[in-house]
């Protein structure tokens, strides 16, 4: 795949700047579709040294739990071909410290915070949501359901439709109606569409696809697992085709449900691939470890790619790969696959979008 590296000031910068990058994730209007992925940008502070958090579509925080958490023993990370296998164990400060320090910092710096929450019981998720309800500045809630359910033999919520739905319902009920709830699904399931449908039925306003894949590495020198946690979550370009497949399948089954896609996005064309599969926005994760400037670069590359393909608006490219194989029909004639994909976006020029966003921006 061709690598695109577009920097401001290059000849086609004007064409790139002309692409309308605004998008929506359920009720959430975003100036552009490039977000951070949970667990890969902390709560924004460290990344802000390299990328202005206000210039991102949104900052999806590292998953917050009720109590502080030490995480797992080391080694916690091992590099694999085009991937990373991690077993961090959700080390974090806990909700109260997050609310006292991290959330206000994000708001102060003009970021749109999408707070990722994780729990070990339905009750913990419900309490997290209820507490966030009264915290100013929360733009959205992403529910990390790839956690073990202590009440059900440690089975991961995301792996059973009923468990996933129960968590999502609890979070939705405790979240303000104006704040979208996104369910982040695991690809380690037999039928991701079934889980997705259950989450949507339970009130999810959108879906985040995908969490890491469960994997393992054995060190052939020590002849033991490389990670202290034995197994870990695989991320990075190695899993991108799995993510594209999941986005494709879910968008095909439920084209009206907004999707935030993540899984190995390293370039603008990787982001475009997710958009064409049906994503309204993308999260950049592992790429940040490789290149802290990645979110800004990927946004610029995505804009360039869209302009090169003749898209005037990002929303017109959402799900475009699903169009029928026949030559595209005349504009506005019947099948409407192009505009269909952007069905969740409001009509152009609606007051709601104008109020929240400025002119499309490529990079600050």
């Amino acid at each position, binding site marked *: 795949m061709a690598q695109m590296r577009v920097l401001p000031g290059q000849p086609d910068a004007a064409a790139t700047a002309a692409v309308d990058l605004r998008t929506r994730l359920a009720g959430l209007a975003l100036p552009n579709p490039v977000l951070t992925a949970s667990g890969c940008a902390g709560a924004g502070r460290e990344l802000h040294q390299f990328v202005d958090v206000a210039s991102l579509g949104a900052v999806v925080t590292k998953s917050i739990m009720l109590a502080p958490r030490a995480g797992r023993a080391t080694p*916690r990370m091992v590099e694999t071909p085009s991937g990373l296998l991690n077993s961090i164990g959700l080390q974090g400060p806990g909700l109260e410290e997050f609310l006292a320090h991290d959330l206000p910092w994000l708001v102060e710096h003009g970021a749109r915070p999408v707070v990722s929450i994780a729990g070990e019981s339905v009750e913990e998720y419900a309490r997290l949501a209820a507490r966030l309800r009264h915290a100013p500045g929360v733009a959205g809630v992403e529910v990390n359901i790839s956690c073990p359910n202590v009440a059900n033999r440690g089975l991961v919520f995301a792996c059973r439709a009923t468990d996933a739905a129960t968590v999502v319902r609890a979070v939705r009920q405790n979240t303000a109606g104006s704040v979208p709830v996104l369910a982040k699904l695991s690809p380690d399931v037999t039928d991701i569409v079934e889980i997705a449908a259950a989450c949507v039925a339970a009130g999810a306003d959108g879906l985040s696809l995908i969490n890491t894949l469960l994997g393992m590495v054995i060190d052939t020198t020590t002849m033991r697992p490389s990670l202290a946690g034995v197994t870990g*979550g695989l991320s990075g370009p190695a899993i991108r085709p799995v993510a594209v497949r999941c986005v494709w399948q879910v968008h095909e089954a439920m084209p009206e449900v907004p999707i935030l896609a993540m899984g190995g996005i390293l370039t603008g064309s990787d982001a475009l691939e997710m958009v064409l599969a049906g994503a309204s926005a993308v999260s950049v994760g592992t790429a940040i470890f490789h290149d802290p400037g990645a979110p800004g670069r990927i946004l610029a590359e995505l804009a360039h790619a869209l302009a090169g393909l003749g898209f005037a608006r990002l929303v017109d490219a959402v799900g475009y790969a699903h169009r029928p194989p026949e030559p595209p029909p005349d504009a506005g004639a019947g099948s409407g696959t192009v505009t269909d994909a952007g069905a969740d976006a409001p009509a152009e020029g609606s007051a709601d979008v104008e109020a929240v966003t400025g002119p499309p921006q490529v990079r600050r």
Partner: protein
Amino acid sequence: MPVQVRGEVLSVKRVGEYHEMTIVAPGIAEHARPGQFVTLAVGGTPTSMLTRRAFSIFRVAERGVYGGTVQVVFAVTGAGTAWLAARRAHDSLDVVGPLGRPFSLPRDPASATLVGGGYGAAPLIWLGEVLRRRGARVDFVLGASRETRLFGSLDAKRMATTVAITTEDGTVGVRGRVTDVLPTLMTRANADVVYACGPMPMLAEVTRIAADRGASVQVAVEESMACGIGVCMTCVLPVVGEDGVIRMVRSCVQGPVMDGTRVRWEDIGTVPEGTWGTAPVAGATSVRSGSR
């Protein structure tokens, strides 16, 4: 504040079993201090190696014919460092730095003993020069498994009051380890502070020796890192805070330089009981790996 720059390789040369690389990296050299590090992306674009490689800064030149340069020293230990060793003059490199906490310097002229294991000596050479300029007495203890893995002994001899060399095979200097000669040297130099960089077991032992003699001890820890900027939580180790509480601390942003006496050396690779964020009731639940 760290920056990400497109650097240019000026030279790569062999020094014993190591490689010494000089990179033109404007904006980094000017702000770096001894003990800080840089990270380099490896493998070109695109690459299958996603984690950046972190290296202590050996030296900087704030301005020269080519602008600010930073030097790093590394051993080839895998595909990433092999790729770096194969770089040539004018090759482009993605550099982030300066990162991490530097060594803190004594306010008044003091006697400083600098202990380096292998190429862990690299940041200490620069530190020694800075300390000398501030009027400190500087003594070095440099050790390695064999002569070709010693680093910096000539530079050390140029500036230090004394330099002791140890090799495990006895090819040069005293046969043994740096920690075998450190107690005597500290007494002779009347050391107020010990600075150390090298393998973790060496740092643990140096800390014990220094603390026993009432000297303060600063160590640059060596934990494997992934992002180097404080977001991934990979490079953590148990450290006791001033409040007496153990925390899993990121060596990339709360280190790499730490007060050696705060590190729970014997517990590295574990999360000790009572660490901040562990359940008060010890019950090792089987938790699915992979959630960040």
